């Protein structure tokens, strides 16, 4: 009998154990990330817009790609009329196919980045827009439309990058819940229509620039400015002019014509003041700024100069954008020269301005002043006998070291002479460009006088000679864009948008080989074509 009691005890113990495990013992809970249902209140949607700003910033903050190459910014300037590589030692592999065009293939790494970056923006925008429609939200229609407008700004922006660079592309307007591998290219017209719809909704519903909780968030003027560019690309010139006017006449922006800001008591000029860190934001006095991506010293603000890594771009690094390095020179390699503030910190001469650009300015044009475009270097090592003297003479390396350079990306941190980070805001849109977009729209409508007037507003500020309507051509407008916007605008995209790339580099570009009309569109990334296994993504002609 005792045996059976023991046996029974065991059986009871086991059955108790079996029962004690509830059914939801195996239920999985995510504790450290958000699930879509956790994003329902206004703060979550505001954070969604910040997330879009973050994703956008990856383009500018790219430090190096998965191969350790750092020339992404060169891709958009070299092989055009503005920049070229002088010394092969400083040439970055990423930029080679964009100057020796015969090497540009569908496996190019830069197009992979661009394509993914655009669709990340699109997916994040789609997530915000779709989540706004989920039932049970207690948000006002006004708030919803404001957020939706801001999200659609980024979606329109991303599709505009795609349309400009690739032509017609797959259209996705809602987030995916399952994998998809049967994308097909929509027509360029359909993509353009979507862009115009998105940006129109944005300009109507996004807040005004004086009504932003996060300064770099999308506002009406940003949407209008971008819309002006889209209309120019699609040949709707009157609409483009109207959008430029909407920005100009909004009352929020005015050209910087007087000295201001942190260096106001040092030698300089008004144009240069805009590009000094501490002066670049609207609340720092930059009345011309429409859209500024802010940067902070990562030593004092986490992620202040980028996030370092991003899971969507394995192997890439995003702390320490390369602007200063690619545009700056290696002057400090010359004996008697040391890295310093006055010379703009540590550059590495990846590219140099073309002779065409260096000869493009009138003598007194402020944009050509020593504060904006450095042509002369003076020995700056106090221990050197030549201290204070002009660097010149034979034996000076003018390929890498003593090279004329734009000062727009000068930056120096005495704690970081090497310049691991670039602590400088990035002016993405400013009123100066608005006048150029307006001039282009006016010119395209035959209004050369209006175009001259628009351009003269800029030249007036720059103390450059005025122009008359007879001087206005597309080339002149593109030249003026250089004078005003060199090292700021994405030159390649401007020339692709205006379909002038091939003509413009003739007699202007340097060291360029293999450029033909086919490069007015970039190839669809081969990996995208391969991964899209259930439908054909047709390649652009010639690739």
């Amino acid at each position, binding site marked *: 009998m005792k045996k059976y009691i023991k046996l029974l005890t065991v059986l009871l*113990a086991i059955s108790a154990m079996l029962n004690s495990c509830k059914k939801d013992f195996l239920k999985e809970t995510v504790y*450290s990330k*958000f699930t879509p249902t956790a994003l329902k209140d206004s703060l979550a949607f505001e954070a969604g817009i910040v*997330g879009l700003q973050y994703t956008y910033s990856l383009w500018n903050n790219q430090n190096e790609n998965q191969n350790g190459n750092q020339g992404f910014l060169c891709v958009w300037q070299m092989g055009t009329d503005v920049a070229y590589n002088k010394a092969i030692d400083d040439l970055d592999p990423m930029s080679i196919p964009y100057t020796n065009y015969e090497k540009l293939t569908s496996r190019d790494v830069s197009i992979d980045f661009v394509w993914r970056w655009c669709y990340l923006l699109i997916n994040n925008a789609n997530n915000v827009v779709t989540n706004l429609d989920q039932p049970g939200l207690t948000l006002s229609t006004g708030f919803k439309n404001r957020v939706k407008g801001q999200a659609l700004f980024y979606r329109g922006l991303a599709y505009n990058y795609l349309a400009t660079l690739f032509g017609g592309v797959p259209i996705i307007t809602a987030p995916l819940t399952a994998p998809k591998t049967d994308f097909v290219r929509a027509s360029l017209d359909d993509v353009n229509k979507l862009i115009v719809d998105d940006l129109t909704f944005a300009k109507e519903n996004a807040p005004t620039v004086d009504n932003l909780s996060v300064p770099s968030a999308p506002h009406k003027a940003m949407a209008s400015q971008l819309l002006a560019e889209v209309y120019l690309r699609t040949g709707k010139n009157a609409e483009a002019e109207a959008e430029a006017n909407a920005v100009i006449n909004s009352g929020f922006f005015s050209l910087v014509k007087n000295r201001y800001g942190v260096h106001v008591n040092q030698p300089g000029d008004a144009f240069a003041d805009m590009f000094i860190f501490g002066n670049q934001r609207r609340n720092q006095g930059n009345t011309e700024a429409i859209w500024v991506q802010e940067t902070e010293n990562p030593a004092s603000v986490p*992620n202040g100069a980028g996030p370092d890594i991003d899971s969507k771009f394995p192997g890439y690094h995003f702390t320490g954008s390369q602007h200063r390095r690619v545009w700056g020179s290696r002057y400090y390699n010359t004996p008697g020269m040391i890295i310093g503030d006055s010379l703009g910190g540590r550059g590495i001469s990846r590219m140099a301005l073309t002779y065409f650009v260096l000869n493009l300015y009138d003598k007194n044009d402020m944009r050509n002043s020593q504060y904006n475009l450095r042509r002369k270097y003076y020995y700056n090592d106090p221990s050197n006998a030549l201290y204070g003297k002009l660097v010149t003479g034979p034996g000076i390396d003018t390929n890498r070291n003593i090279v004329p350079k734009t000062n727009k990306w000068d930056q120096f941190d005495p704690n970081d002479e090497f310049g*691991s980070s670039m602590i400088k805001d990035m002016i993405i849109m400013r009123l100066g460009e608005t006048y150029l977009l307006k001039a282009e729209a006016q010119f395209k409508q035959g209004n050369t006088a209006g175009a001259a007037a628009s351009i003269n507003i800029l030249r007036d500020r720059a103390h450059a000679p005025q122009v008359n309507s007879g001087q206005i051509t597309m080339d002149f407008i593109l030249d003026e864009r250089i004078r005003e916007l060199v090292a700021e605008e994405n030159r390649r995209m401007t020339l692709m948008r205006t379909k002038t790339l091939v003509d413009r580099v003739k007699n202007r570009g340097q060291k360029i080989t293999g450029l033909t009309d086919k490069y007015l569109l970039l190839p669809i990334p081969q990996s995208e074509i391969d991964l899209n296994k259930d439908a054909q993504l047709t390649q652009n002609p010639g690739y």
Partner: protein
Amino acid sequence: MLFLFITSGYKANAQNHLISGRVIDSLTLQGVSGATIKIKNTTKGTVANPDGSFKIEVSAGAVLEISAVNYHPLQVKANLSAPMQILMGSINKTLADVVVVGYGTAKRSDVTGSVSSVPKARLSEIPAANVLQAMEGTVAGVNITSGTNAPGTSPSIVVRGINTITGSSDPLIVIDGTPFQSLSLNDINTNDIASIDILKDVSATAIYGTRGANGVLLITTKHGKAGKALISFSSYAGPEYFAHKVHPMGPAEYVQKYADYKLEAGVNNSFPVPNQYEQENYATGKTTDWLKEISQQGFIQDHNLSISGGGKDVKYFVSGDFFREKGLLKGFQNKRGSIRSNIDATLASFLTVGANLYMTLNNSDGGRVNLQQAMQMSPYGRFKDPDGNYTIFPMSGDLAFQSPMLGLTTTRNDRRENFITNVYAEVKPLEGLKYRVNASYNYLPTLFQYYQGRLAGDITNGSASVSNSERNNWVVENILTYEKNWNKHHIDFTGLYSAQQNREYSSNINASGFINDALQFNALQGASTFSASSSYIKTTMVSQMARINYSYDSRYLITATARRDGYSAFGGNTNKYGTFPSVAVAWNMSNESFMKKAEFVESLKLRGSYGLSGNQSAVIPNSTITTFSTTSIPSNGKPTTGIVADILGNGDLKWESTYGANVGVDFSLFKGRVSGTIEGYKTTTKNLVLYRQLPAATGYLNIVSNVGKVGNKGIEVTLRTQNIVSGDFRWETNFNFAANNNKILDLYGDKKDDLGNRLFIGKPIYVIYDYKQVGVWKVGEDPSKQDPGAIPGDLKFADLDHNGSITSDGKDQTVLGQSTPKWTGGVTSAWHYKNFHLSVFVQTVQGVTKYNQLTNFVDYGGRQNVVSGLGYWTPTNQSDVRPSINYVNYLTYGYPQKASFTRIKDATFSYTMPNSLADKLKLSALTLYITGRNLATFTNWFGWDPEANYAATGDSSGNYPLVRTFIIGANITLK
């Protein structure tokens, strides 16, 4: 039933005496299950219980005849007055060994699956800091690789080839029946280990279900035995040296390199060395041997004390251990202290309880020098500044290369603790029936603290980082076993129900901007900038398992098992459960009567099995749910939080399934002079979890999916021979060989290669895929057609697709080799003369190709030092192999090289004191030994070591030289 009938049949006879006793193995002291006890000259007899116990009625003066399979039969006189203890000697030690098979043990002769044991001599006689070090090269089909020798690191282990791409290929480790949860196998004190058994084939591993596919390591720790207290002390210590040194260029070579660089790059300056600091030192002829500066004399030591013993009812084993290794490179060290207490108590005849408690403290503190940076430094670089501090940038004006010494100015604490408590109760309510409950709780805290200040070149006025993590795991297992013998039949059943929960919380704080470097990470409130992160993951698991063993006459054996596992991380659309059946059969052919004539055959067993096991490790918790993560941008001088889409979840995700077949033969010939095992296996892993890349247009990078398929097949041979057995002299060898063929059968369901991830159908998982170098472009040759970017001095590659040019679209690259070995082998040869023993172990690893990062000649345009002895192309001395110094590796060629090697892994000479002498010294036993490890390596590899994962760019913790060690040790057992 028969048993009851026999005993009851004799109860009537009043003249008889009921006697009891136990038949036990003379070596293992385990009961001999199923031994037959017969009264001589009668037909009366009985069969022993599973624990060897028996009762039988005998008349006075009776003689018992005891027999059992694999034991020498014997006769003993029945003892009427006291319980008898009958020791049986096994015919073949190996076959009578008890092996742990998971949720129980089995006699080697009864095992149906593929179970290998680590030779006990490797565990008891070779000093090893890490259990895998002790195992390396000794078990066929178990491939252990030491990627780095840095103190405190653990080698990697793969059993029978890699069958996963995303998941871990580490085997499941079970210690004393409980799954071992750890961050490192270094947590185990090898002195505590009694035995290691490895389940290799799918039928054996299937009882561990979703965690069995990579094989299972079953570790049994030492337990006390009844008797007088046994006090053992063992201690070893010895110096460490570089097994092999790779030198950076010396001063003259470096200067020549810069001159050659300038000539080729067209750089026109009059400097003999590139930068200002170098030029200063060059002028005064001051040089620094950076490799010497970062090195120090290494030293390793271990001290272990154990006390074991017990009475009839309570047995104990208590041990304490202290291990310390001072590395070869400055700042590298590891300390480990551990305490174990294993207690077993018999509370009643039917009830045993016990507790195994284990604690280990692991410390790898220390700011460390950097080997890779030392290799980059110019010999003319400045070592220290006038103020006595290490120069931050020894090659300043170039500010890209920091001094390798800077780590010594940092404070770095790296600590890990592991507390394992395991209690059990075992009830035997009925004859042959046993119920056991195991409850285990495991607490694993880690701490990492780091501070780098101004002396380390920190540009943020000092930065500190503190990381804490805490894992809490519990497991409860209910195990029911039933065993029965009748006539020649044996059957046993094991049933399991278990539940498990793992929780892991970790947090990290980074702070920077301190007024000075005094307080470091001890007062983070003194910093001006902070960032923090944390994460929490919880997983749960529920399992049921049943196993039946049946054997007839120890000739025919069959094992059938099934396990069902539920795991929380499997996709929400699945039922979260997987079922894993297996079956194995074996035939002890030597027990057949027709084999009796073949006298040279002592034992011969054929085995075959088929089964299914799983790998859940590829399913990362929270990967099946679509999620958003946070990020931040600066706004108005402050960080502002944003949300971005993170992963696209796959609710259908489940475990990887490995189907495997195994055939084997175990044999022992010529009275055990030759014994061994030959096995062949073939496995196919389906539902391989892969991060299937998605078109970027989806807005996601990839989705984790069960898509791939991998096959492994291989052969394993283990051979033990006693070559000479003559009086005082013996010579034994233990030989093992394993070849594995690993093949990807499918990836994403479309039979297409994945070029991006270097995965190719029909090829092994880890391949070397690269251009085929055929030479170097010579002066006068025109590379422009074939390789438009190339100039003389650049590497010349084969135009594999014959389209006239070298392209980066993958068509000029090919699979050049595999980075996992094609075959491995090991030979241990042991010579014994009287009390002196010499054992030499040689291992070989063949058919490996690896990228040789060290030969990827990157001097960044004449800016850094490179390895000496490689050479480079110059116009006047045109190499066929090495490129010019100015070569720009546009195609990112990886410089693959054969990494096969043969190594005299260790040699041990030991002296065991004879009992007579030990007695005089009042000792029970004394062994003195000297061991040398990594004595010689034969390889064509250029670099630190073919096994090492050395990275030439970027700091890698793997950058540590192979260590040669000489150890003197003593094992003392007190009387």
